[in-house]
C-alpha cells in the first residue's frame, strides 16, 4: 500500500537518518538504518479499545530538527535539582555529583554514551525493549535523540535520586527520548524521568523508550511523570529485566498528552525477582489514555504487585490492561494486581481489564478491578460540614488516590504527583 499524504516522505526519513547520525559508530548506524526500514514498513500499534487510524498520526512531521528554544521558567527551576535536562532532544544541562564519579558510576546523556561508553551501550541497547514491535517503537529505535545513560557498579548505592527532565518546546513536532539504566549486582538507585512540553500551534509526536537492566540483587526505584501538553501524542514503552533477587519499583504518574499509549513490562527471568508497580493516571478534557502493565514471570519464586488508580473527568477515556503472565516452570510465583478508577463525569469512560495468563499450577495469582462514580452520599456528608461541592469532590479524589500516592517512597516524586493531581482537579 502506498503511503498517502504523509507529512514526511520515506526518502526524507532515510536521508535524515543518514545525515543526522553520520558520526556515530557503524554498529549503531546500521541499527538505526535497519529500524528506519522497520518503521516505514510496520503497521500502527494495535490497541483494541484505542483506534489510532483516525488520529492521522502520519500528518505530524518526523525527522525534523527544531529551532533553538528558550527554557521556560519551570524547566529553569529544574537546573538546581536535575542531573540531566534535554530540550527537544538536545542536552541542555548535565550534572554528575563528583562522589558518584569516584564510586565508578557512569552517568551520561545517551549521546555522550555513544562515544564515552560504546561497549556498554552496544551490549544493552535494545535488549530489554523490542524495537521491532511496532511503528512508533521502531521510530524511537531508529531516530532516538537523547536521554539518560546510567551504569551503577556492583554494590554501589546512590545516596539521592537522579532526576531527568525531557522538555519539548512549542515548535517541536517530534521528540524521541531514550534512556538506558544498568544496575550491576546489588547496586541501588532511584531515578525520576519527567516529560514536559509547551502547547504548540501544531501537534507533536513523542515516542519514548526506557530500558532497565537489573543484575542479581540490584534494586531500582524508577519514577516517571508524564505532563506533556494537550497538543502532544505520546507512545511510551518501558521494560525492566530483573535479575535474581533483584527488585524493580515502578511509580508512574500519567497526566498529560492528548493521546497516551504506554506500556511497561517487568521481565522476571531469574528466581526471587520482584516487581512493584504503581500507576496513577488522571484524564480530563478529551484525553485518551491506554495503558498496559505487564508482569512476566518466567523464573520460579518471582513476585509481582501491580496497582493502578485512575481518576477520569470531562470526556476523557482510559483503558488500563494489567497482564500477569506466568510461564510454565515459574513455580511459587505470586502475582497480584488491583485497578480502581473513579469517574467524575457521566461522559468519561474507563475500562480496567485484568488479565491472567497462567501456564503453571503451583502459583498464586489474584486480581481486582473496579470503576465507579463518586459516592453521592459522601459528597452530601462532606457538604453538610460546610465544604463546597468542589471541595468535597477534591477531598474524595484525594482520599481515593492517597493510598497509591502516599506509598511512593521518593519524596520529591510523591510531591510532584500530588501537585499534578491538584492541577488536574482545578482544571
Amino acid at each position, binding site marked *: 500500500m502506498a503511503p498517502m499524504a504523509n507529512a514526511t516522505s520515506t526518502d526524507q526519513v532515510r536521508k535524515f537518518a543518514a545525515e543526522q547520525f553520520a558520526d556515530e559508530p557503524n554498529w549503531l548506524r546500521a541499527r538505526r538504518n535497519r529500524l528506519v526500514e522497520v518503521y516505514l514498513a510496520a503497521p500502527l500499534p494495535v490497541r483494541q479499545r484505542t483506534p489510532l487510524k483516525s488520529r492521522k498520526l502520519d500528518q505530524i512531521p518526523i525527522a525534523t530538527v527544531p529551532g533553538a528554544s528558550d527554557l521556560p521558567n519551570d524547566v529553569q527551576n529544574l537546573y538546581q535539582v536535575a542531573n540531566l535536562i534535554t530540550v527537544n532532544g538536545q542536552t541542555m544541562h548535565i550534572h554528575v555529583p563528583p562522589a558518584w564519579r569516584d564510586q565508578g558510576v557512569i552517568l551520561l546523556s545517551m549521546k555522550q554514551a555513544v562515544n564515552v561508553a560504546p561497549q556498554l551501550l552496544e551490549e544493552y541497547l535494545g535488549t530489554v525493549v523490542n524495537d521491532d514491535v511496532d511503528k512508533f517503537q521502531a521510530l524511537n529505535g531508529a531516530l532516538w535523540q537523547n536521554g539518560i545513560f546510567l551504569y551503577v557498579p556492583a554494590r554501589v548505592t546512590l545516596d539521592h535520586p537522579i532526576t531527568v527532565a525531557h522538555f519539548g518546546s512549542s515548535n517541536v513536532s517530534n521528540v524521541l527520548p531514550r534512556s538506558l539504566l544498568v544496575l550491576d549486582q546489588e547496586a541501588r538507585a532511584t531515578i525520576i524521568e519527567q516529560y514536559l512540553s509547551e502547547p504548540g500551534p501544531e501537534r507533536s509526536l513523542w515516542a519514548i523508550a526506557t530500558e532497565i537492566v537489573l543484575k542479581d540483587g540490584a534494586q531500582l526505584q524508577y519514577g516517571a511523570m508524564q505532563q506533556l501538553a494537550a497538543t502532544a501524542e505520546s507512545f511510551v514503552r518501558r521494560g525492566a529485566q530483573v535479575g535474581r533477587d533483584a527488585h524493580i519499583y515502578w511509580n508512574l504518574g500519567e497526566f498529560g498528552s492528548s493521546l497516551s499509549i504506554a506500556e511497561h513490562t517487568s521481565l522476571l527471568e531469574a528466581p526471587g525477582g520482584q516487581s512493584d508497580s504503581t500507576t496513577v493516571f488522571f484524564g480530563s478534557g478529551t484525553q485518551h489514555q491506554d495503558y498496559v502493565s505487564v508482569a512476566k514471570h518466567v523464573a520460579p519464586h518471582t513476585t509481582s504487585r501491580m496497582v493502578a488508580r485512575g481518576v477520569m473527568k470531562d470526556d476523557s477515556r482510559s483503558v488500563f490492561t494489567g497482564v500477569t503472565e506466568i510461564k510454565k516452570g515459574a513455580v511459587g510465583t505470586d502475582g497480584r494486581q488491583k485497578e480502581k478508577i473513579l469517574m467524575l463525569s457521566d461522559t468519561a469512560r474507563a475500562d480496567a481489564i485484568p488479565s491472567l495468563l497462567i501456564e503453571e499450577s503451583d502459583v498464586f495469582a489474584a486480581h481486582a478491578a473496579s470503576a465507579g462514580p463518586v*459516592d*453521592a*452520599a*459522601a459528597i*452530601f*456528608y*462532606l*457538604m*453538610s*460540614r*460546610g*465544604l*463546597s*461541592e468542589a*471541595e*468535597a469532590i477534591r*477531598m*474524595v479524589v*484525594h*482520599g*481515593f*488516590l*492517597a*493510598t497509591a500516592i502516599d506509598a511512593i517512597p521518593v519524596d520529591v516524586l510523591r510531591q510532584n504527583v500530588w501537585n499534578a493531581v491538584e492541577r488536574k482537579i482545578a482544571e
Partner: protein
Amino acid sequence: MATPVLEIKDLHVSIDGTPIINGLTLSVKGGEVHAIMGPNGTGKTSLAQTLMGHPHYTVTSGQVLLDGQDVLAMRTDQRARAGLFLAMQYPSEISGVTTANFLRTAINSLRAAQEEKPITLKEFRDRLDEAMRFLEMDLQFANRYLNEGFSGGEKKRNEILQMLMLRPRIAVLDEIDSGLDIDAVKVVAKGVHSLVGPEFGALVITHYQRILAYLKPDVVHIMMDGRIVKSGDKSLAEELETKGYDWVRSEFIHEV
C-alpha cells in the same frame, strides 16, 4: 452572636413523588433541647435529611427558616455555614482522608465563610485533643480515615466530635443513640450538654426513650405519618414508653 431560631412551618416533603412529611411545624431556639420520637417509617430521618438539603427529598410546600433566613433556598454547604449541623444516622466512610484532615478542612471552610483566618495547626490540635478527651475517645482516632472501618458506636462518637469541633448553632441528631451501649449514650448526652446554651439548640431524633433520661429535653414531640401529633414535656416520653405507639395512634391520629 444572637440566639439561633430554627422554624419549620407546615413542611411538606415527598420522595420520588410519594409524600413523606405532611405539614410539620416545629420551632427550636438556642438553649433548648427538643426530642422527636416516633415509630420507624414515620419520616423522622426524612425530616433530618430535608433540613440539611439532601437532594433525594423534594419540599413541596412549607418553610424552613434559620434566624428568619430561608434555609430551603440554601445549598447544603451554605446551610452548614449558616450554623446548621446534622449528625447522621449512617455517616459515609471517606477512604484516604484522615478524620483530623477532614475536620481542619471543614473548620476552615466555615471560617472562610465568616471571613476569618484559617485555624492554626496548634489551636486545631489543642481543640481536637480536648474534644476527644472529653468524649473519651482514643486520640489515635484522629489519624484514622474518616469513618472507614469504624464500628457503629465509633461513628456516632465521631459525629459528636465533629459537632463539638464545628460548633454549630442548631444541631439535628438523627438516631445518634441507636446501637450505642449505655456508657456511649451518656458520652453523647454529655457532648450535647456541653454546647447547650443561648447560642446552641438541639433537635434530637430518636426511636428510644433511653437517651432522653440523660439529654433531659425541654420539649418532646411525637411524630407519626409525617406530622407532629403531640408535644409535651419529658413526661410525654415516659408515657409513650409505658403505653407504646399504638396508644398514640389510637389517641391522636383519628382526631386529625
